[in-house]
């Protein structure tokens, strides 16, 4: 099928993209195109212009610095998957990337595009919530930083305002013994998650959990942080009772809808199962 007619602008800076988006509300950024193209072909959207940012220089970086990780708007899913340093420090990040779609989708799709698209079943949001990331948006009045917890406002909607684009995603590094994992339940290879849970745990010298952070996707109108589950872990030794209790709390915090991937009851129960698996997987690393 052919997409509807639209114009095309190839920009050489994000500032230029912001100018266009600010003056034309129907213009849309084109990054990896892996969510945009199907929407266009199915004629679910009809933008005036696509603003192609793919040739903006120096936007594909994943910079692992001492105290933070900075990710450019054009870093593709595949780049995370093959990043050995990420596998050693924060395995949940490449582990998330490798479970998104399929190789062709990962070769083009970007983390920033996934966040901006805000599919309530997308994988990145869970992991970025667990890592307490923040998003640097560039808009008509300059840059602002949006904490990930405030970024998603509902299904397919975000805190990005008129003319704003994602410039960078920043993850602050946590000192100490940090463990992480992302576990995705999927019906078949390459599908969106039935539910997905990302966990980051910081262990103290005595083996107790000093800090915990849990992000959950596909289990509500937007991805969320399972705060009660986190509280059930912090300050305790991760015994099976403690983990069971945390998983139970994560389940109660979830609010999935029934759809082709399962009934809401089934998905709620899976939140518990997958939370447990994610905690155990992180601890086993």
């Amino acid at each position, binding site marked *: *099928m*052919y*997409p*509807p*007619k*639209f*114009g*095309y*602008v*190839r*920009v*050489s*800076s994000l*500032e*230029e993209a912001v*100018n266009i988006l600010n003056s034309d509300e129907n213009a849309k950024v*084109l990054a990896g*195109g*892996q969510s945009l*193209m*199907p929407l*266009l*072909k*199915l004629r679910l959207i009809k933008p*005036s*212009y*696509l603003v*192609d940012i*793919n*040739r903006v220089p120096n936007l594909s970086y994943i910079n692992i610095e001492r105290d933070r990780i900075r990710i450019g708007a054009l870093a593709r899913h*595949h780049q995370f998957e093959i990043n050995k340093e990420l596998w050693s420090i924060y395995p949940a990040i490449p582990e998330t990337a*490798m479970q998104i*779609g*399929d*190789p*062709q*989708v990962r*070769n*083009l799709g970007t983390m920033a595009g996934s966040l901006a698209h805000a599919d309530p079943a997308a994988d990145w949001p869970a992991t970025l919530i667990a890592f307490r990331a923040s998003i640097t948006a560039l808009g008509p009045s300059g840059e602002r930083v949006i904490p990930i917890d405030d970024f998603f406002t509902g299904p397919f909607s975000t805190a990005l305002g008129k003319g704003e684009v994602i410039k960078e995603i920043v993850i602050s590094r946590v000192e100490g013994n940090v463990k992480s994992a992302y576990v995705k339940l999927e019906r078949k*290879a*390459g599908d969106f998650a039935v539910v997905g849970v990302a966990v980051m745990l910081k262990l103290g010298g005595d083996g107790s959990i000093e800090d915990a952070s849990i992000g959950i996707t596909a289990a509500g109108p937007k991805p969320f942080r399972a705060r009660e589950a986190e509280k059930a872990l912090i300050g305790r030794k991760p015994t099976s009772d403690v983990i069971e209790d945390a998983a139970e709390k994560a389940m109660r915090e979830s609010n999935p809808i029934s759809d082709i991937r399962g009934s809401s009851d089934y998905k709620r129960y899976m939140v518990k199962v997958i939370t447990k698996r994610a905690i155990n997987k992180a601890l086993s690393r």
Partner: protein
Amino acid sequence: MVMSTTLKVGPEERVRIRVRVNGVWYERDVEPRKLLVHFLREDLGFTSVHVGCDTGHCGACTVIMNGVSVKSCQVLAVQADGAEILTLEGLAKDGKLHPIQEAFWEKHALQCGYCTPGMIMETYFLLKENPEPSEEEIRRGLAGNLCRCTGYQNIVDAVKLASQKLKELKMTL
């Protein structure tokens, strides 16, 4: 700050693009909405590039663009301006099949053949990145390519054989 729009085309306009396919440069005028798959099939005649879906799920349209596999139905022709593209037509040399094609032939890795060009191009990318993949890695590597006929087993065998052939020939992709 000086800002230069490198290219701007209205919805009713066409734009001239240059794309290098299988080693040859082509110049054509296209509408911004034209998909790369339609450009390759209809404008340039590379009919190995198949269309099997509207949602980016089947992989029949897979080609190599600037060294990585992409679904050409998920890319605009204008985005490929200046790009280097490899399609199935570019694999055989001097009338001789490429080792990956030979392996698909020998292992009977196709029935109707609709998915085959996409399978072979994704295999090309998989073996370029990982010359000796495990069975698990092969299955993961081909997760974006659907086949309605074979049940995949012979395709997996063909990828293993292709990997062996390339190694014996000391051929890098």
